[in-house]
């Protein structure tokens, strides 16, 4: 049963890519297609990071533990859209102009933040296989706490690049704050955590 849910989720995660390809093919990306692709892939990378971070709180509050089986896929889709985003910046926007890109990374805080987030996602993606999880043991969890740094850097990247209208980056930041808040609450409030587990007889 869960197998089908996974297939449906996988397909849903590809919808933004399909939308992008469709709009590109039908010449519907507007006057500045490179900017449109950059924004679109960047937004979806951020959205997927937030959705991935939402898995644990939702699992804990609903008790739907199978949900964790979707987490790796969601995280890898975040990396996928972030890679498209980075490739767009690198290849389309700056056409492999390494000197300019290097200067951007060092000099422009929003690029530094975005680049940091992307680079930190690489080890997370590489160590996402079952074999790696087994090999790293307890250190796997420690390594994957990096996702919090990635999320904060990603939101900052967005916040620092807008000119005046901060509504969307603030929205993403608020969602992130709630998701991080959930973790603080469940860590420091054992009473709440206990209640969430529900009656012992119903626990799986």
């Amino acid at each position, binding site marked *: 049963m869960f197998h089908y849910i996974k297939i449906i989720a996988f397909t849903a995660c590809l919808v933004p890519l399909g939308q992008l390809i469709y709009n590109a093919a039908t010449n*519907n*990306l507007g006057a*500045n297609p*490179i900017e449109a692709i950059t924004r679109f892939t960047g937004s979806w990378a951020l959205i997927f990071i937030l959705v991935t971070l939402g898995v644990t709180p939702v699992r804990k509050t609903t008790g739907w533990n199978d949900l964790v089986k979707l987490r790796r896929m969601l995280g890898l889709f975040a990396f996928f859209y972030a890679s498209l985003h980075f490739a767009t910046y690198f290849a*389309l926007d700056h056409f492999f102009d390494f000197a300019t890109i290097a200067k951007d990374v060092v000099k422009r805080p*929003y690029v530094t933040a975005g680049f940091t987030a992307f680079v930190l996602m690489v080890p997370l993606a590489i160590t996402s296989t079952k074999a790696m999880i087994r090999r790293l043991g307890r250190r796997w969890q420690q390594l994957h706490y990096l996702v919090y740094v990635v999320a904060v850097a990603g939101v900052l990247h967005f916040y620092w690049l807008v000119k005046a209208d901060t509504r969307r980056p603030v929205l993403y930041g608020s969602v992130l704050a709630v998701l991080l808040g959930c973790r603080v609450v469940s860590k420091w409030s054992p009473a709440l955590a206990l209640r969430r587990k529900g009656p012992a007889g119903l626990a799986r």
Partner: protein
Amino acid sequence: MLIKKPGDIKSSEITPKELYLNRRQFILAASASAISAGALFGAGVSGAAAAETPAREKFKDLRKSPYSTSEKLNSFKDITTYNNFYELGTDKGDPARNAKYLAVRPWTVAVEGEVKKPKLYDIDELIRIAPLEERIYRLRCVEAWSMVIPWVGFPLASLIRLTEPTGNAKFVQFVAVHDPKRLPGQKFPVLDWPYVEGLRMDEAMHPLTILSVGLYGETLLPQNGAPIRLVVPWKYGFKSIKSIVKIRLVETQPPNSWNSMQPQEYGFYSNVNPEVDHPRWSQATERRIGEFFRRKTLMFNGYGEHVAALYKGMDLKKYY
């Protein structure tokens, strides 16, 4: 004799036109906010907007200008669907989508301040004070993209001369329309409304500086700043204030919106300058809309031979 009975509808049941129009506006507003709510999270992919375009009037007998560039023009579609006009929304496609709200008649422009002959112009009178010219200019946005646009307009100097400035007139202040009903973007304090801009007197009197009332030979669309806007081609686009309702000659340097919002990032002068970066991004290159490769940004947007003398001896890193 057969007298036809009037219809069964009592006059009291007929919706007054005003209400009817308001209802239409309400529906438009509701659908617009639904769209923007979707765009907020959904990260729309399309920059294109299908705008309901108001009737445009064609200008006849436009004069050509030696100031026009012969570079390839951007398409009418690009120029009218990719806009920064925060009063009509902050996404590039918003101004075209929300253009329908901005009715541009009736419209008046007050010309006042340090002048001997202040006057409240009706827009249709104002566009006839001088022969209209076609001016094909480069436009360089502070966001590092550019276009080539065939404006229609007349030199701002023609208007200023008519007002007979007093000796105290050192700067010109411009004020844009402020009416959240017609400019839905003004419901959010993204900037401090109304949008204001300013020029030094010599910049305002420069023959390159025009008041534009059209593009591609036809009246301006709302998203481009209808019915009348400033065009100062050697400065970043935000200096070229749209939908002007007041022009005031003043003695001291007037505020300009982006400078008030973020003084370290946007100056009063805001001359296009590849050597002075925006604190958050480089201004050395730009993407000409429609081109793949970035091009080098030119000092004063390539208008240096005409305007460099205005800034002789000024430290342009300080007066950015």
